[in-house]
């Protein structure tokens, strides 16, 4: 333990620590920003439930939260169904192509994302050949980073070339549809709780027009 505290860092170790720190900060920033965008997206999609239910609420056809929840859920699900049809059709096309491909090659353990005979042949893949040096004063060092695969086309991998993009596109699309469903559901619940609350303050009173008492103008009574 004492040895670990009193460790003397070499110039190379310092560089690695610095690079790792920068990398960690960048990853945290990226994750934070992605999370921020997702939350914004969910909130933005959630407001669409107001468009769906506005007429019925504004015309006083719906006057209680339970009715609004039932009506809003029906509308929400109908909209979700409409939005979910395209990604699920794309995914279904991918599944059908995969089944046909597997039936032709009689290989039902096929991975469409494989580096050997799947979509992975079209992308760069890297191999980190790092290992512990065994010296307790040294940190983990990557001896070298090797390119494991260069993009190349294999005719036998046609199934992967069709199926993998189908799955990726439908996955991302369905993720967005699911996020909008979540957003609308949360926003509907908020509406049901807040929409029918009655205000005790008269909206036409000067107090409600100037709610901040510190800035109240005595002449404006």
């Amino acid at each position, binding site marked *: 333990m004492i040895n670990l505290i009193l460790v003397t860092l070499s110039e190379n170790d310092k560089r690695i620590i610095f690079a790792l720190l920068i990398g960690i900060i960048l990853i*945290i*920033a990226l*994750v*934070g*920003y*992605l*999370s*921020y965008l*997702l*939350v914004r997206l*969910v909130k933005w999609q959630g407001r669409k439930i107001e468009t769906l239910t506005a*007429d*019925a609420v*504004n*015309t006083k*056809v*719906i006057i209680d939260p339970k009715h609004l929840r039932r*009506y809003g859920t*029906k*509308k929400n*699900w*109908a909209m*979700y*169904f*409409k939005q*979910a049809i395209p990604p*699920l059709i794309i995914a279904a096309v991918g599944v059908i192509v995969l089944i046909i491909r597997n039936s032709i090659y009689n290989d039902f353990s096929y991975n469409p994302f494989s580096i050997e005979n799947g979509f992975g042949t079209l992308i760069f893949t890297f191999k980190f050949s790092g290992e512990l040096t065994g010296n307790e004063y040294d940190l983990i060092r990557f001896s070298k980073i090797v390119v494991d695969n260069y993009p190349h086309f294999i005719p036998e991998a046609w199934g992967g070339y069709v199926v993998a993009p189908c799955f990726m596109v439908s996955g991302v699309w*369905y*993720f967005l*549809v*699911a*996020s909008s*469903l*979540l957003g609308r*559901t949360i926003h509907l619940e908020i509406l049901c709780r807040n929409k029918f609350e009655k205000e005790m303050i008269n909206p036409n009173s000067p107090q409600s027009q100037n709610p901040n008492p510190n800035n109240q103008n005595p002449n404006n009574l």
Partner: protein
Amino acid sequence: MSGLFKNLGKGVLYVIGFPFVIAGIVLTGAIGIFIFLFQLIKIIILFFQGRSIFQPLDEDIKAQAILNPPLEEEEEKNQDENKPVDDYQVYTTGSFKTTTPTSLEDKYSDDTGSFDDSLETEPRNEEEEND
């Protein structure tokens, strides 16, 4: 400085909340599959009943009836406004409509070149002119 710490705190919250947001969306997506299947079965049943889940609900129809009253009601309103009037009103209205010229040609089609009697002015006073 406080704004910086506020933003930093928000960022940390977003980073911590990220897995939960993802988990929530994935869970919703999984539940959504069941909702989709349920809606699909519902659509098939409603299809054979000649209906659809996308058609307006009762609440929508009521709301639309309030926002855009049907034509029959409007016609009734118009009928109330066009109540039968007495003969004098019919005559005056009709005569006004038929005699109102629509263009300059119509206006002067009966013009024979003579002055209209109604437009004759009183004879000018010569004394005033001399002044």
